[in-house]
């Protein structure tokens, strides 16, 4: 026998997917803007690896936040598989966010090198 979330609980999943959708769009736009700044060499001191990595990281995070949304949506749009869909969303997060961890690790390494070698950006 599977668990079925109540309407009040479904409302919380709706709220979560709405806020995640907003974050996906904003992360994408911020990442795109960073890459535009890097590509067009808008400001001399911003044309460096850190800006490129941060732009790519924002785009990657945008994708990572987007991936579990369809599974969360199925919780309140379908009936009978709520726990399976919830576990599916969690599975997507735990599998794919490994790459977000890797990219974040690279950013931290680059940021620390920039900090200790006194580079402007």
């Amino acid at each position: 026998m599977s668990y079925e979330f109540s309407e009040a609980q479904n409302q919380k999943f709706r709220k979560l997917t709405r806020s995640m959708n907003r974050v996906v769009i904003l992360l994408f736009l911020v990442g795109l803007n960073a890459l535009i700044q890097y590509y067009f060499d808008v400001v001399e001191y911003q044309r460096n690896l850190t800006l490129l990595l941060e732009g790519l990281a924002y785009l990657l995070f945008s994708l990572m936040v987007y991936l579990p949304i369809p599974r969360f949506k199925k919780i309140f749009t379908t009936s009978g598989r709520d726990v399976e869909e919830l576990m599916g969303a969690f599975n997507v997060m735990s599998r794919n966010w490994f790459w977000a961890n890797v990219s974040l690790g690279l950013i931290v390494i680059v940021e620390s090198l920039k900090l200790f070698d006194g580079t402007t950006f």
Partner: protein
Amino acid sequence: MKSSNQVNNPNQHHHDENYEFTDSDRTNISGVVIRFITNALLLVLSGVFNITRALFHVSRGDYFPSVVVLTSGFVFMAMGFTFFNPADNLRKILITKGRDIEEVMTAITELASGFGRLTFFLMAMLIFEIITTTFLFQQ
């Protein structure tokens, strides 16, 4: 949309608030907890580095880059803190009994609130970045 199965067969699904996740579900949840915590720590660390660099810029009199880097630092830290509370709630599922659904719903609520706060920081950052990019293109 709820199917008619729920009306014709009310015992097929239930809302037992003492519902316990299976061992397989718990393994899945532990994977998410690890990802959330790793993400949070790396994001906060990156934010700290950005804020530190911003202070270096200020000490050198480079105020414009300091604002840009500082904003980026706060966004990274906000992203990091988005994941700490939900990770803790999900972790409680693994170490307690009888409150699985309650902890999941608390984690979902915390996650939604965290993403809501992050929306605010990202909007501020985006507006600032677009103004900066537009201004610099015109120079």
